[in-house]
């Protein structure tokens, strides 16, 4: 069920694009010092495109329910350097037995890098370093997949990214230790904007697991606008986990763009519970036969948080499988938006695509807009989509209470139960524990939930 909201006057964010063009000018020296002539030209084209586009408005279909005016209104300054954070600051985001790399406000914090037993040929480095050490690889892939023509935030990132992470896995290599990327937002006195750029390239028959955590050290408003491009080579297995756990004062507009070659298996788990206005664009193109894309998500928001998951799965070749399950728990006056398009090209016969979005509203003032969409040009496919918005089952609450569980704990148990099928899909114990801990802390009487699951 999609909830329609009454049409209201579109909010046009103040033309606050100047801050970014000024930032572009200020960073010109640094941005010109790395990269390639192609990237320089792209940066220029992107900042010009952003100036034309401006911030999206709710008049645009893709942004109908997500008003980014508060970001446009905030007097943001493009970050030109990064403060340092201590090991203690980020200790709770550290995962044992993982390679680790930390970005602070979009720039590498090299003192926190730990490379653990990376096989021969695997590269985990900052993007700036990768331009030095592997210029051809970076040139071949960076900014090739995430398009900025009609996307202001991808345009901003393309123009303004100062640094980021580059991961490369050569043919046949299995990276057994997961890679934990901690992207720290460190708020300063003046609100900052930063644009981390991530690129993961995997060659044929390789395998890797990557965590991407977005966290905050300190308190205050900032705007992070990350873009991640992933190239899944033929017959690869890539598991990507994104934990968006920033301060409630953060703005987060992210894009994940995946290109899948034949026989590749890509899974993404997108867990969002931080930030004030959060948008996750998750796009994958299945460009070879027999690809699998598993896209799961869980969002839990409260207060005045808004989280928007915007998915596009393009089935361009036959015999591919995609499965999306996004679940949302909305409290307070929060808002959840889900838009999911499954596009099946004419030749993509035998496509098997499933998409579901389920929402649990815990308050009368929370709101959800869910729009699953199918666009199918092939004639021999199996595609299903569904969307639900509901509340806790009163009978189930009564059942639990009739066994001696208090009402609050019963509600929390059922809320946990709603989230459980995403929790159990998180195969990696580190991430799963973090997710569970978050739920136990967040839910009233969470200690009883902890005991009962």
């Amino acid at each position, binding site marked *: 069920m999609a909830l329609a909201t009454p049409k209201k006057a579109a909010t046009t964010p103040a033309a606050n694009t100047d801050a970014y063009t000024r930032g572009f000018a200020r960073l010109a020296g640094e941005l010109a010092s790395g990269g390639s002539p192609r990237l320089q030209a792209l940066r220029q084209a992107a900042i010009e495109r952003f100036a034309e586009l401006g911030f999206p408005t709710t008049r645009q279909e893709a942004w109908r329910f997500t008003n980014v005016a508060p970001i446009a209104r905030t007097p943001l300054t493009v970050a030109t350097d990064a403060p340092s954070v201590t090991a203690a600051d980020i200790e709770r985001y550290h995962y044992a037995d993982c390679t680790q790399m930390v970005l602070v406000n979009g720039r590498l914090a090299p003192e926190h890098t730990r490379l653990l037993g990376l096989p021969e040929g695997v590269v985990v480095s900052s993007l700036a370093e990768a331009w030095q050490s592997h210029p051809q690889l970076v040139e071949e892939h960076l900014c090739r997949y995430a398009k900025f023509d009609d996307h202001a935030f991808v345009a901003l990132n393309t123009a303004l990214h100062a640094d980021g992470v580059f991961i490369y896995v050569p043919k046949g290599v299995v990276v057994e230790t997961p890679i934990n990327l901690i992207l720290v937002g460190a708020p300063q006195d003046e609100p900052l904007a930063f644009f981390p750029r991530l690129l993961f390239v995997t060659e044929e028959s390789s395998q890797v697991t990557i965590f991407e955590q977005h966290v905050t050290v300190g308190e205050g408003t900032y705007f992070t606008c990350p873009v991640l491009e992933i190239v899944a080579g033929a017959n690869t297995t890539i598991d990507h986990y994104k934990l968006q756990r920033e301060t409630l004062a953060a703005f987060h507009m992210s894009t994940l763009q995946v290109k899948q070659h034949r026989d590749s298996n890509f899974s993404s788990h997108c867990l969002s519970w931080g930030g004030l206005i959060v948008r996750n664009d998750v796009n994958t193109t299945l460009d070879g036969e027999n690809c699998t894309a598993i896209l799961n998500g869980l969002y839990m928001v409260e207060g005045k948080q808004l989280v928007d998951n915007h998915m596009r799965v393009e089935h361009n070749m036959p015999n591919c499988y995609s499965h999306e399950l996004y679940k949302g728990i909305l409290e307070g006056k929060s808002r959840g938006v889900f838009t999911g398009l499954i596009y099946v090209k004419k030749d993509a016969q035998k496509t098997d695509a499933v998409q579901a979005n389920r929402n649990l509203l815990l308050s009368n003032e929370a709101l959800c807009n869910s729009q699953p969409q199918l666009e199918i040009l092939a004639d021999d496919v199996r595609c299903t989509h569904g969307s639900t918005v509901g509340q806790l*089952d*009163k*009978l189930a609450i009564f059942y*639990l*209470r009739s066994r001696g569980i208090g009402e609050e704990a019963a509600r929390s148990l059922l809320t946990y139960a709603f989230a459980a099928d995403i929790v159990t899909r998180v195969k990696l114990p580190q991430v799963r524990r973090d997710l569970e801990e978050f739920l136990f802390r967040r839910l009233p009487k969470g200690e009883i939930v902890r*005991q*009962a*699951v």
Partner: protein
Amino acid sequence: MCLLKIENLHAGVEGTEILTGLDLTVKVGEVHAIMGPNGSGKSTLAQVLAGRADYEVTAGSITYRGEDLLELAPEIRAREGIFLAFQYPVEIPGVSNVYFLKAALNAIRKHRGQEEIDAMDFLAYVKSKMEIVKMEEELLHRPVNEGFSGGEKKRNEIFHMEVLDPTLAVLDETDSGLDIDALKIVAEGVNSMRSPERGFIIITHYQRLLNFIVPDVVHVMVGGRIVETGGKELALELEAKGYGGHTRAAEAAAEAAMPASG
């Protein structure tokens, strides 16, 4: 000692009266069977006893161990020793059957001023109860009722009852739809718990269960009240003759009562 005393209970849902002046007294140590045709209000009685808010009590009283039961929230009733085996047990995905029971048992123990049971003791305790209801270990670790067959769900209710060790257990058609093996397990569960300190109200549609659980008292419920009470032989009589006579009598009584109640 009187465990439960229901007097002139009137209750309904959304303005429709279902219980129309029900009286019932259960003493400790007794097993009462309540039989009656569909729609006679048996399940409503069970739900009202457990405290479901959808049913409104408009008149009458329920006294449980000397306390006004209607004043208590469902979880307090449970902690005070009332257990309802649901006719349709609810599936709770993601919540493990055994850990859920541990949380429930600890909530009950805390209410009674007892210490929380530790994990090892709990496991040993649960294992002993599992044997009684021939519960497979696997069902212990599955989410509560999720993907359980009908019979497994009913057995799980009896298992919950065994673990939570209530003072008054109400079984709402726990026997319905069970094959003979499952029925025997349910009956053994109840029989193993019969004691001078405990009472049972067994609501059933079928006499067959009472071949395995021999009740002390049998009631016939029609039109929202108890219309006849007798010994275990009453169940056999009903089996032979059906509820026809009772239904007609109840209708006549309702008609007679109508002018008086306005």
